[in-house]
């Protein structure tokens, strides 16, 4: 169960981006690869949130939560038409 990947939405504190990065997307990618070499990024967001969505195992999600600059790691939810 701990290996099954799900989509998570990761909120980042953009103001905490290290000076070594110029583009925030590169920082997001580096944050993701720091916890997994196989994690797949779906979208990066810059207008409605600062962050990205990615496929992660629960263990990877937990590890990402501990990564500097990460505000929240929220599991994806499914919405339905009304």
């Amino acid at each position, binding site marked *: 169960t701990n290996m099954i990947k799900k989509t998570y939405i990761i909120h980042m504190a953009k103001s905490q981006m290290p000076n070594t990065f110029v583009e925030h997307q590169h920082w997001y990618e580096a944050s993701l690869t720091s916890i997994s070499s196989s994690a797949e990024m779906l*979208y990066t*967001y810059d*207008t*409605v949130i*600062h962050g990205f969505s990615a496929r992660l195992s629960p263990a990877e999600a937990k590890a990402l939560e501990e990564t500097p600059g990460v505000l929240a790691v929220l599991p*994806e*939810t*499914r919405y*339905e038409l*009304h």
Partner: protein
Amino acid sequence: TTRTPEFLGLDKTEGLVPASGTETDVVVGVLDTGVWPERSSFNDAGFGPVPAGWKGACEQGTNFSTAACNRKLIGARFFCKGYEASMGPVDETKESRSPRDDDGHGTHTSSTAAGSAVPSASLLGYAAGNARGMAVRARLAVYKVCWGGGCFSSDILAAMERAVDDGCHVLSLSLGGGMSDYYRDSVAIGAFTAMEKGVLVSCSAGNAGPSSNTLSNVAPWITTVGAGTLDRDFPAYVSLGNRKNYSGVSLYSGKPLPDSPLPFVYAGNVSNSTNGNLCMPGTLIPSLVAGKLVLCDRGINARVQKGYVVREAGGAGMILANTAANGEELVADAHLLPATGVGEKAASSIRSYMQSDPNPTATIVFSGTKVNIQPSPVVAAFSSRGPNSITPEILKPDLIAPGVNILAGWTGAVGPTGLTVDPRRVEFNIISGTSMSCPHVSGLAALLKGAHPDWSPAAIKSALMTTAYDVYSGGDGILDIATGKPASPFDYGAGHVDPPRALDPGLVYDLTVEDYLDFLCALNYTALQIASLSKRSDFKCSGERTYAVSGFNYPSFSVAFTTASGSSTATTTVTHVRTVTNVGPVGTYKVSVMTSEGDGGAVKVVVDPSELDFKTVGEKRSYKVTFTAGSMPSGSVGFGRLEWTDGKHVVASPMAFTWT
């Protein structure tokens, strides 16, 4: 849509909306199942060039080329990375990996919000008339985020991001995902930034009514829309062998039933299944059904599928019986066989007849489209209800709009029932849901944005809410079809939308981003939670200030009294503060307060000052409302209405009281 423009008085708004220019530069973004761009509702005749600031695109994909867009439909994008990551690749034999709408829902909602005028529209002859969207001159951009397996939050966030960046002014989302705190809800999160950038976000309240505490999309920066009926009906009467007739509704159009009554059976008695009464696939015994009318109970499977099941078993027609869950609410369907839906009371009488007569017979008489049905509107039974379970101090839904039996544009991929076995193709379809009421309000918001380009999303929402009505012209309160009794602000919020009055509200309750941040502080959100929601990672609630939701400048009042334990005489006082901005002529407004009989009458409401004098446009005035209530049993509720009037404008706010 047909009929709703007249029902909403849009024909009276012509003089209130600037004749040239502005509205055509308003863009409504619809996040839904995509669009069928060839429909006449997306005709761009009479439209000028695409607004200069528009950054949207018409994305190419399966059965969809960039040429599908025009000066009306100025953007079409699709978002499926999240869907495909969870569900596997989009099955292109069933749905288009493109903005094309293979479902119908998105074409319906987008044409309702801002479709072009189409003469002589109808569904198989029903609801005939000139169809138009609410903001007929606004532009449309569609963002396909919903697929066969649902709508995923990573895609919704991506679409909201693009819609805001593209330059949409209004976003319409007829979808929901249960109840969660705002900082966990992607629609609420996306809507926060949209609001910050001046984009109004209108969302459906949900179809989980008539139970209480069933609302979706309750963030205060979202406009939450419930559903009501129109003054239109599609009667189809059940005529029994005992010569008694019962009213039902139907959109059946086809070969009529024979003149003579047919044998009539209850599905539960002609089935080999324990749930045969529901007419689920494969549960009816053909030899017992052939050539007969079949009574099926509503529930579990789709209403139109029940008709198909009866037809496949050889039945001649179907009567669809509401149960207690639906009460007297009648939802019309374009059934594949002669069929009508009847309310719970009629269903009960019909069942009694079937049990008492050894050889029951019946027929169905279809009567087409009737208008001027009164009373209307009534709150739809399915419309989700308050109180607001996330923030009880914010009254939701905000308002209601037409959402029952709404005619609007439809996909060419499926028939009006949506069943794969339905070979019919129609340009318009009639469907129901808060999905249908939401784009009405989205379009009306675009209308207001066009007339008042400088108004904030909060000001537009305020105008829509404070001018909504909660009584019929005779003075009786709007009814709830679920109970047959007067509805409450937990059902309709501020009331039913009234566009001519919303264009000229007199006063508005405005809100800034800072006000919303203060609201989050009042909810005791942590810095991390506020940062996730607002992108402000350096924002901190001040330790020097006292934050209170009662000071949040919302256009309605929701007051929660806490009864002191062990004391039956204790009184509780709650004070709210509001600030109104004059957007009309100079003048003096006087206040009046009405509280409902019963529990609402137990609340003393004092407004200070009781008069507000405005000498200039844009002037702001604050007032204080003190609510004092005696002890009431926990669970008690009461209601009221606070109105400011200058003799011409009436600026009304609903009040809801709860005791815990």
